[in-house]
C-alpha cells in the first residue's frame, strides 16, 4: 500500500509517504490507524488524537470502517482548511 501524510500528520510522522505491504490483520482504515499508532514515536503522536485525523482511500474521503486492500493509496491528514 502507498501511505501519504499531510500537514501536521506529516510533520509528526516525520515523512510524506511510504510504501508498505498491507500488515496482517489490517482490513479497514481503523485497523491501519491502530497498527500505525503502535509503531510508536511520531506515529503514536500523529494518531493519538485519532478523532482529529481524517483519511482518504484512493483519493476519496472515507471513515474508519472503510476497507483497505493491497495496492490502495491511503492518506492521513487533519481536517481540511483551504478556501
Amino acid at each position: 500500500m502507498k501511505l501519504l501524510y499531510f500537514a501536521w500528520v506529516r510533520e509528526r510522522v516525520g515523512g510524506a509517504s511510504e510504501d508498505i505491504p498491507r500488515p496482517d490483520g489490517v482490513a479497514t482504515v481503523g485497523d491501519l490507524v491502530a497498527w500505525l499508532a503502535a509503531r510508536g514515536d511520531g506515529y503514536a503522536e500523529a494518531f493519538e488524537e485519532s478523532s482529529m485525523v481524517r483519511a482518504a482511500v484512493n483519493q476519496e474521503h472515507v471513515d474508519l470502517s472503510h476497507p483497505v486492500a493491497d495496492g490502495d493509496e491511503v492518506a492521513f491528514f487533519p481536517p481540511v482548511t483551504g478556501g
Partner: protein
Amino acid sequence: MIRVQEEDFDLGAELKAMSAGKTSIGGLCSFVGLVRDMAGDAEIGAMTLEHYPGMTEKALEEIETEAHARWPLDATLIIHRYGRLEPGDQIVLVAAASAHREAAFEACHYLIDFLKTRAPFWKLEDTADGAKWVDARASDDAATARWAVKSGEE
C-alpha cells in the same frame, strides 16, 4: 473548469473568459478568498498552503459536477492556489454563471462551502508565535451541512 496552481490569477480575465460568447447567461456570481492579515487575534504575516496533488483535482471536479447536477448552469470555475501567500493575496476563486440569478448565487455559495470541507488543502500560518496549522472551523461543517437540508426542501 477547475485549476490548481501556485501562480496568481487575473480575476477579471477569468470571469470574462467564463461568460464570453455565452449570451444565455443572465448572471455571474463569483467569490474570491484572500489572505487576511488577522486571523482571530494573532497577526498573520504570510501563510503556506499545502495540498494533496491528484486528490485535490478529483475533489474539485466532484464538487463542480455536483453543482451542475443541482442547478441549471452555463459555466462554473474553481481556481485554488497552493504554496506561499502574503496578506492581500488571492487564494481561491469560485464562480457560477446561469440564466437565473438565484441559481448563480446558490451554486457559487455551494462551490465554496463544499470546497472548504472537501478539498484537501491545509493552511500553515506564520504568526508572532511561529508557524501554526490552522484549525478547521465547525462553522465550515455547518455551512456544508445546510445544503443537505436545502435539497430536502426543494
